[in-house]
Structure formats: structure tokens, C-alpha cells
């Protein structure tokens, strides 16, 4: 059962990293405009000359 002593902290650590990432993105305002984010991912504004149309 020694393995539990490694696995439990490891599981918690992974969970904490995810929680930290969520808190960070919340603080950065990434949840402020969910509708916009859904559309922005489809935009081609990173392709040169595309918005010159």
C-alpha cells in the first residue's frame, strides 16, 4: 500500500494544477466574454492579408 503514499499526493497535485490554471484564466478575464471566445476561434485573422478583403 506504499504506492498510495505517492499516488494520493500526485492526484491532488494534478488537481491543484488544474484549479490553479482555472483561477489564472478567471483572473485574466477569459470568462468575461464566452460568446465572443466561441466565435474568435473560427476567425482567420492570423492569416496574412485575409482581412484586406
Amino acid at each position, binding site marked *: 500500500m506504499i504506492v*498510495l503514499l505517492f499516488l*494520493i499526493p500526485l492526484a491532488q497535485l494534478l488537481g491543484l494544477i488544474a484549479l490553479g490554471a482555472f483561477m489564472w484564466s478567471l483572473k485574466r478575464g477569459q*470568462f468575461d466574454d464566452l460568446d465572443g471566445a466561441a*466565435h474568435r476561434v473560427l*476567425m482567420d485573422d492570423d492569416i496574412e492579408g485575409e482581412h484586406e478583403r
Partner: protein
Amino acid sequence: MAPFDYDSLVTHSEDGARRFEAAVEGMTCAACIGEIEAGLRDLPGLDHARVNYTNRRLALEWRDDAFDLASAFERLRLMGYTVRPFELAESEREEIETSRFLLRCLAIAGFAAMNIMLLSVGVWVGGDIDPSTRDLFHGVSALIALPAAAFAGKPFFKSAFTALRAGRLNMDVPISLGVLLALAMSVYETLTHAEHAYFDSATMLLAFLLLGRFLDHAMRRKTRAVAANLAALRAPLACRLSSDGAETVVPLVKIAPGDIVRVRPGERLPVDGVVATGASQLDESLVTGETKRRAVACGDQVYAGSMNYDGALTIRVEAANGATLLDDIERLLEKATNARSRYMRLADRVSRLYAPMVHLAALSTALFWLWRGASLHDALITAICVLIITCPCALALAVPAVQVVASGALFRAGVLLNSTDAIERLAEADTIVFDKTGTLTSPEPRVVNASGIDAGVIDLAARLARASRHPLARAVAQERPRAEPLEAREAHGQGVCAMVEGVEARLGSPAFCGLEDEAARLGALEDDLSLVAFRHGERRALFQIRQVLRSDAVETIAALQARGFVIEILSGDRIEAVEKIARALGLSAWSGGLKPAHKVARLEALRAEGRRVLMIGDGLNDAPALAAAYVSISPIDATQITQAAADAVFLGERLAPIVLTLDLARKARARMRENLALSVIYNLFAVPLAMAGWLTPLIAAAAMSGSSILVTLNALRAGASPLHLSPALRERAQLVALADSSGQKTRMEAAR
């Protein structure tokens, strides 16, 4: 147009960055995000332009002095967007903070619940788990649960504490008690190496409740944001005249008593005050309900919200001195609002019954087991189990879940809710009182004889009308919304003229076009008729303009009557005008010539008869009545004070949203009751188990999540409506509502 004074709305942060927010009108699809941001990207000095598509807002950030805000706005205007500067209201800022806080709590509770569940499943499944491993799992669970609950439970603990201190019981009291006792008992059990710990139930409960609360909050915030945008779009700007004669446009909040404000023909008065120079006719229907125009001259008292018809005015702004009409309205409003806050929500009524009942059940369980000879420890544990299982998770979700779904459905239909308990009160209404002017009739006057006039004449007249700002000309222009404006010369107070095909075309007063005789004949027949004359060589026409019923008023009234509502009209307008409308709608209960206080008195009388009145009105004079009624709705093109007093506002020209709102509210209320019944049934099964001492953590977890999910699923049915509007239709409804009658170019045209 005078330059706008933007500086008053720019916020400066400590590191020298400047920020400006604006509501953007005309953003109809996701492509607009890219269009706006790319369009502004190359402006000198601008660091950041970011569109928030959810709120339809634009935030600009810059440090460099080279950046000129006015040029950014000019560029957006050329692209076809209307931009209105925007100051985030304190209340909205707080809402955003609360929303983030709830999301943070939810994340932590969710994290804790999942990780503890991971450990708990091990304990449940491994029946032959050795006691030291079980203690380790419980210990780790405690380490996660205690700090998580201390943080994520804050919203509940705080509210419960406030309620207890005020000597009341609300739903948060049994929630907090259940969570705290579950944690305390589990810690004690862990320390004494016992078999059962309830860390998973406590954290999962918090996660479920927080999810419900967050969604409820997010929906409300979204509605508020839209309402705030609309307020900014049709909003309080004023043209201030400084002592050297220069004009600047400033937000209304920056206007102080003693300032001089200029109002052009066709604009609404932004302030109360005394006419300093100029003379004009004012349409005060929004203020008093009276549709006949009042002539004002130097020295007359005028009120905000009146429409200026003929001449430019300058107005000296007055501080409220306690004697004006507006002050009366404020006073009535305050009184009425106080009277209504006594309403008790369904959920509160239930929790008032529920909380003492569960506490009593827990106490009697403990006493029963003691009497049966159980040890104090066992009796207490069983009592605490009763408190844990009765912790009203499903009950606390029962109402908010329906609320979220129903207000979402209303939002899509163009109805925005102002107050949280509006749905419940709307569902209880049995009598509807309408205001006339601006509510049953459309807010702007319309041409009523268009079918009798040659189409070519209307085309030309509409093009001429576009050149004028006169409100009657706008009614003519509305007949051809896509007409190209003509280069026309405006003859002050008379009309506009332009050369068309070598012949002069005129649009204006009958005298201006030489049509006095015909006009006199028509005017003698009806006195609420306004006339606009048109002449182009031999072609001539008289446009008859008046307040007309909204396009679906008759159908809406019929639909409401079919649903058993008692309908009445209370108006501030002249008795003859009200009678005509009432007859057209087939209503027998109506009264006219009422002052705001009379309307409130009539509503009080109806209340005394035991009626629950839904008041629908838009004018400034309706604001006290809206606040005094059991529940109220206001069209969104009304004044701000009215919007603030109403429980709900609706977009668009049509009255149909009222029927839809009432239907949805009744449906939502039925769902709420079903949900409450479901959670009571859940308790009927679970509580005896707990009282008998058979409760295990596994049963607690399954029963709680099961009932919560059941209640949430049932709530979803509240939104499934045959009247459901598609997003495209909603966009159109909003566009129609917002379309400025003075001829706004579409973006397609501007892009060319």
C-alpha cells in the same frame, strides 16, 4: 453636431494607461468582432481594442497622447456602427465582482468534491479496507474539505449569519448548519477511527448549490448588461452651452444646475428647467400622457422627456426645489416602492416553514434515541445525519433553476427582467392596467392615410423628410425607411424645400405649401390630427399624422382577455382621446385625464378589492403607478425612470411579448411548485432512513445528487416553449426596436 466631451468618461489607471468603454449598436454577427478590431488596429497610439461580444461593448486602451478618441469613433461611424460612451454603473461593477467570486467558490468546491469523491469511492467499494488506510483516506479528505468549505461556503455562511442576526430564518440557515455539522462530525469520527465520514456529501452539496447560484447570477447579469447598453444607446446626453457660446455634448450626469443646455427641434429635453431663450411647441405625452402639444416661451417651466417640436430652445437647468412635477413623481415613487418590498418569495415562504421543521425533526430524533437507551454519541450522530440529509439542496435549487431557464427564454424573446421575484409575481397577476400614450399606442406618431396617397409622392416626400429633424417629418420619413435624403434647405419653423427635376418640392406646414384650405377642412373634423403638407409642381398631398395603436394591440388585448385577465386603461390624456382608443380595443373599463397620484389611488383601490394588478406603462407619469402595482412591465423605448420602476421591460414595437411573458411566468411557476413537491417527496423517503439510523455516506451522496439533478432537469422544461424565438428573430426584434428613425445607414451601404 457639437463635439462630444469624451474626457469626462476616460478612466486613468495608475501606470498611465487610459481606458474607455462604449456600447456598440449595430453589432449583429460574430464577424463584426474582427471587423471592428481590425478597423481600429492601425490608429496611431492605440494599444488595445477589444470587443466583448456577449455584452456588445468595446474597450479601448492607450497610453500615447497621439491617440485621438474622436477619430476612433468617426471610423466606427463610417463602418456603420453607432457608439455610445459608457460608464459602468457601480451596481454592475459589483455584480461582476460577485459573479467572479461565485465562480471561484464553485471551482474550489468542485475541485474538493471530485477529489474527496475519488477517495470516498475507495472506502465504499473496498469493503475489507484495513482501518489504517481508511483513516488515511478520511484524513486526506478532511485536509481538502475543511479549507475548501471555509472558502466556498462563504456565500451561504454570510447570508445565514445576516438572517440569524436579524432574527429570521432563510434557506441558507439549514444549508450552513448541515454543512458545518457534517464537517464537524466527520472530523470527530475520523479522529476516533470510526467507519463513516461525510466530507464528500458536504463538499458536493456546496458545489451543487454554488452551481445553481452562479447560473442564476450569470443570467441576471446578462440581462442587466443588455438593459444598461440600451440605456446608454438612447441616452442621457445634453448639449451644454458654455459662457463663450461654445457647444459641447456631455453625458447628463455631468450637467449641473445653472448650466445652459441647448435643445434642437426633434430632440427630447434632457433636463428640467426654465426656458432661457427661444419659443417652441413641446409634446409632453411622455411626462403627462397629454398628447396635445404645449406652446412654451421664455420663462416657462419645462420637463425632461418632453419632445421639442418647432424651434431651438436654450434651457437654464434647475435644481429640484421640491415643487416641480418630477419631484412629485419622485415622492410618489418612493412611497410606492416601499409599499411593495413586502412581497415574500415562494422560496422564502417554504424555507420559513422548512427550517424549523427539520430542526425539530433532528431534535426529536436525538431525544427518541436517548429515550430508547442509545448512547449520547449515537443519538447525536443520528440527529446530525437527519440534518445532513435534510440539508435543502434540491429545495434551494428548486426555484433558482426554474428562474434561470425562464429568464433565459424571456431574454431570447426580448423581455428583460429587472427584479428577481418578477416571474412569481407575474404568474399571480389577474388584472392588467394599461397606460394609453406610448404603451397601447406606438411611441412615435404615424402617417395614417398613406394608402390614399400616390406612391411616387410618398417616395419624394420621404426623401425630403429625411433632411428635416422635425418629429412630424420623421413620421413621413418612416413611410420609406430606405429613402435617400435630398439636399434640402430648411425654412425655420415652416418646412424643407429642394429642387427636384427643375421644380421646387416643398414639405412642411400646410401654409408653407399653400394647402391651408384643405388643411382647415380636415383639422375641423378631428383635433388630435397633425398635418404635414407636400407640394411638387402640380402634385400635392396632405399627410395625416397621429398616434396610432401598436400594430398588434387589438390581438394582444383579445389574447389577454381570452386568458381571463380583467383589463383596464388608465391614462393622463384627454377623455375623448382615451375613449376612442378604448372603443377600438373593445374595452369598457377606462378613465382619462388622470394625474400620477390618481393612477396610484386607482391601483390601491384595485388592491383593496383583492386584485393583483399588472401595470403596463411607459410615461414618466406612470413611474409611480408602475412601482405601486403588484407587478409591472414597461416598453424599453420609455424614459429611464420608468424602466427602473418596472419589474420587466420589453423590446420592440409589438405588444406580443406581454402575452408571452405572462404565459411563461405561469408555466415557470408551475415548474417551481413541481420542484418544491419533488424535494418534499425526496425528504419523505430520506428522512425516515436517517431517523432510523440507517444512513450511510453512500446513501447520502446518492440521494442528494439524485434529487438535485431531478429538480434541475424538471426546471429545464420551463424554457421549452412553442413561442420560443430563434436568435435571428431576436436580433431582428432588437434591431427594429433600436433602429433610429432619422435614417441610419446599414453597414453594407457604408462599407461601399
